[in-house]
């Protein structure tokens, strides 16, 4: 967030208050412009243009609603527009607008054409739904119902659990650290070379939102095991089933949660309905 820009936008709006004979149209333009400036330059790192566009569209809708939700405002705006288009004293201004607007549009087109096209955008689904079950080393793991087999040790046998976590720590720092980073913030040594960049486990919206089965699936099957909705498969996540044993993969899952202090999403008990499933 760039405080200076925010302050400048606010100051601009405040200044409008002191403009004599300020009318509703002026206010709307002022608000729109201030928001535009803030969204465009006031946020650091900058918002993607797609999001800027969406926010401005919502704002435009709101401002239109505002002006037409009051008949006096609406009539005023309409009158002004009609007056601008028809009355003699605005003829020069009207002509200037009629010339200037198409020129601006043409200029925009000029920039679009000369800037050259941008590389194709690839959008991919960040959290694709996991399959119902996966096969690891000939064993079927039911991702719907199976839990981390060692999670229960946390309460039953803390010493054994600590051993599993320690093993997970070893696995992590031997295998995962180059991409996911020493502090699991997704900023390892090689993170800058991959797109998408490695997941940030410290972020409350990654592993904290997911059950351990999901994490296990991502570890075991890696980028090549993503479903078709997550194409293109640029993910550099290896299919760890080729390197690690099942136990090691569960252990490293335990360690991820242990290190970041997150808790895996719990399997919820179902309130209504039968329990036959």
């Amino acid at each position, binding site marked *: 967030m760039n405080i200076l820009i925010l302050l400048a936008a606010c100051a601009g709006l405040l200044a409008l208050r002191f403009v004599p004979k300020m009318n509703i149209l002026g206010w709307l333009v002022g608000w729109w412009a201030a928001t535009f400036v803030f969204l465009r330059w006031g946020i650091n790192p900058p918002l993607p243009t797609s999001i800027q566009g969406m926010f401005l569209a919502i704002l435009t809708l709101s401002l239109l609603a505002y002006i037409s939700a009051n008949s006096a405002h609406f009539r005023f705006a309409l009158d002004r527009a009609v007056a601008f288009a028809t009355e003699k004293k605005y003829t020069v201004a009207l002509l200037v607008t009629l010339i200037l607007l198409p020129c601006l549009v043409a200029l925009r087109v000029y920039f679009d054409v000369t800037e050259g096209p941008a590389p194709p955008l690839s959008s991919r*689904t960040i959290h694709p739904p996991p399959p119902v079950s996966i096969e690891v080393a000939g064993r079927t793991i039911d991702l719907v119902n199976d839990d981390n087999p060692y999670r229960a040790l946390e309460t039953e046998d803390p010493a054994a659990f600590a051993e599993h976590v320690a093993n997970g720590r070893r696995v992590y720092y031997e295998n995962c650290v180059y991409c996911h980073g020493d502090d699991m913030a997704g900023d390892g040594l090689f993170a800058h070379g991959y797109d998408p960049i490695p997941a940030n486990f410290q972020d409350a919206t990654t592993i904290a939102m997911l059950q351990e089965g999901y994490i296990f699936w991502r570890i075991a099957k890696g980028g090549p095991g993503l479903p078709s*909705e997550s194409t293109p498969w640029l993910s550099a996540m290896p299919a760890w089933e080729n390197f690690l044993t099942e136990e090691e993969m569960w252990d490293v899952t335990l360690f991820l949660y242990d290190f970041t202090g997150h808790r895996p999403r719990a399997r919820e008990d179902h309130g209504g309905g039968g329990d036959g499933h």
Partner: protein
Amino acid sequence: MMNALKICVFTVLVAAFYSYVSQMVPQKVTYPPEETELGADMTTEELVVAGEEIASGKGTCLTCHTVSGDTGGRFPDLANIGLVAADRKEGFSDVEYLAESLYDPNEYIVEGFLPGMTPISDPPIDLNDQEILAVIAYLQSLGGVATVTLDTELRWQSEENSAAAAASQASAAAGPSAENLSGEELFAMYACGTCHSVTEPTPLLGPSLYNAGNDFSTAELYEAIMDPDAVVAEEFTAGLMSAQLNATGFYDKISSGQLKTLVDYLAMQKGGS
């Protein structure tokens, strides 16, 4: 009328607006995950992929073999099998060697390993010739270059086994008659001997059943077959047998009559006394 027209236009515009908004979000088609199906016109590359899937799934190869490059496993590691297959056995090309070790695995045993693999063309794994070709293609690709296609002919291939459909019909037809098999035949058919020996007291992958009749009650034998993980003898891996039996479809195939015959057969094994 004018009103009705205006409303019409308005409705269309609003619907179009929402359609437009929906075109603005990422457009992605999600296809169902692909099933391994062996089409008649599969290329060698597709065979490699299919074979990999069979090897880790239905074929249960990875229960015993590893593909990590580490030596010292139960069965030979397959990481470079495509490379070494060509000159492993004199007079055999790599395809021939691989085929032999799949159809007739105990014909050649890699030094340092015990015989124990079951022919994968037979029940319970029961791969048909096409699937075996896919597995060969996959094995060749490990360290080498896959060359086989579905048209590759091997001398191990059986006449009646050549078509997948025929194979499935044959097994369906064979179903009822299997009721009359003896316990020994069942033991062989379900490849129990891969992991359990009935002739020697030495354990293979699973405990020896040399003295099963004395060691276990009939009830224990039933349990050991139907729920292998209930009691696992020390030094043996839990889950291995159930995974193997599940993967080969043992529980789907065996009938209660066969089960009884098999248990009775095992209960007769009293080699220790």
